[in-house]
């Protein structure tokens, strides 16, 4: 069954088209990242899935139910972290969770939820009006997790969170995905998405410009990575070793440095092993991915910030670990 399906979904405000004929299918169990610059129509789309906003044309279904006519069937089965939400300032964090548990007719333990989203028992006793932006985000995330939903819809879940909080959020998304939950979340920051998503959709000016896996997107714009290896002695003799590996298309040598252009991600490890076998001592290594920022810029007609981003990491190369 499909978790989310939209067909020709359109929303216009007067002259302005916020979402333009969106066709999107998200399968059950998938973690789907919904990308786009601010104002691309991501929130409008999510608001239409949740029946906060009514489409001008087209239709949307969530978990097999029509988003407009059968909204009452949808809300008990999904967890929602909306964008631009607020808490009830006079009620405690715990009361918020209890309210969510009551409405979902669930038997969750509020303390367990608090722990999962990183709020302390003392925090939970205070009025939520005293909370910081990040704490409010955590509280709302806790409310979204109530009743073990089949589908999590999160609009900019990382907003207001510090790097540590963002990592926790990604961890949480992974845990939910392992449990079999479908996760649909939006972001305007690529790194937040690439770390956890199976597929991404890129929205620009209300239109879907790409839907693919991160790897697929990279390939589609012919992107590879550059690998820079610093050896303990002159690198000249090792050039042949590197060139001989499949997936390495080009090798440049300067002093103790080898610069390889990599088209197959697996080739990175092979280079390291081959050089090691050949007796070279690798002192340092840098990998520069074709950053998603570049990719994003290419897809959205250069409207995003065009500065390419450097991603560096240690010898244990895993380009997907985002901060």
């Amino acid at each position, binding site marked *: 069954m499909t978790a989310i399906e939209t067909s020709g979904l359109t929303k216009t405000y007067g002259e302005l088209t916020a979402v333009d004929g969106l066709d999107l299918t998200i399968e059950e169990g998938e973690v789907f990242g919904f990308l786009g610059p601010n104002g691309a129509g991501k929130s409008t789309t999510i608001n239409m899935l*949740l029946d*906060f906003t009514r489409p001008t044309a087209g239709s949307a279904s969530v978990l097999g139910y029509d988003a407009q006519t059968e909204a009452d069937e949808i809300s008990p089965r999904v967890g929602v972290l909306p964008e631009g939400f*607020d808490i009830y300032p006079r*009620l405690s964090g715990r009361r918020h969770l209890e309210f969510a548990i009551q409405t979902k007719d669930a038997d969750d333990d509020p303390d367990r939820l608090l722990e999962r989203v990183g709020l302390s028992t003392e925090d939970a006793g205070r009025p939520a009006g005293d909370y910081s932006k990040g704490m409010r985000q955590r509280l709302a995330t806790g409310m979204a997790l109530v009743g073990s939903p089949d589908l999590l819809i999160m609009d900019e879940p990382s907003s207001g969170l510090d790097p540590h909080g963002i990592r926790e959020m990604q961890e949480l998304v992974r845990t939910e995905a392992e449990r079999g939950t479908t996760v649909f979340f939006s972001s305007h920051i690529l790194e937040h998405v690439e770390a956890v998503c199976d597929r991404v959709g890129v929205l620009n000016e209300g239109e879907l410009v790409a839907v693919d896996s991160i790897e697929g997107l990279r390939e589609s714009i012919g992107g590879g990575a550059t690998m820079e290896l610093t050896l303990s002695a002159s690198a000249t003799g090792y050039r042949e070793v590197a060139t001989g590996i499949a997936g390495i298309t080009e090798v440049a040598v300067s002093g103790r440095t080898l610069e390889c252009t990599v088209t197959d991600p697996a080739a990175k490890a092979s280079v390291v092993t081959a050089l090691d076998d050949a007796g070279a001592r690798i002192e340092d290594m840098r990998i520069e991915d074709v950053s998603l920022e570049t990719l994003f810029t290419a897809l959205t007609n250069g409207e995003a910030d065009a500065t390419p981003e450097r991603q560096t990491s240690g010898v244990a190369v895993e380009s997907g670990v985002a901060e």
Partner: protein
Amino acid sequence: MSGHVATVARKEFEDAGRSKLLWGLIGLLVGLVVVGYVAIWYTADDVNAAEVLNFVATPLQVILPIAALIAGYMAVVGERRSGSIKLLLGLPPNRTDVVFGKLLGRIAVVTAAVVLACLVSLVLGAVLFGSVPLVDWLGFAALSVLFGAAFAGLAVGTSASVSTRGKSMAIVVGTYMILIALWELLTAGPYYLVYGEGPPVEAETWYLLVEQFNPIFAYTNTVSNVVEGSVFPFQFQYGLQSFEAYGMTPAERYPGDAPFYLQDWFGVVVLLCWMAAPVAIGYYRFRKADL
């Protein structure tokens, strides 16, 4: 309705119950009742608790509408502006649950205020005047709750039908001003223009009907029937009517047997209309709104 009205209402009641402003108004109401009772006990001889009960209607008449309007004018629109409505509607409650849950929650707040003021009057009546007029008291309390509920309905309905706080406040304050300060100008004024004279005691039937559609008159007319003595509406008076007419109910002014819509009990219908009509409009508009 998906059965979450009660859950939403309980949350609303709890949330409003933490408002200091609301508690301030309720405190003021109770304080005025206490002061009034003590003053009457101190100055008047030979009165019983039943004769003093109508005094409570004066502070209630003024403070209850204000408390209900304050408690309600932001009910829905406030959540739309802050965004907490997204948190609420992201959960199983739907828009119907939200509007009616909020209405019930705010009515519960108003009821709490009335019950508190009435309990104080009951206790003071027993202590200072030595009697407990239970039947009068129950009728009075019930009508006062209905009076408060009418304004809660007006406020919650308004808050559901507009998209900004400013509009909600303007409508609520404007309506209250009309009811308390401009009613006579708006009813007796046209009468004067049509007939060349202000409404006499035995005024035209349409005028009597229109005049009692003011919830404040509806309240005082009905309450005067359940307590000893009569309760006067707290109103700006412009002297457009004959002086005699001010203290009379439409049924008393009507020559002969008044039709049902001019009977004093019809005030209950008027109050129910003031509660239901704004909620119906607000509900209709809120259901269609893009949040």
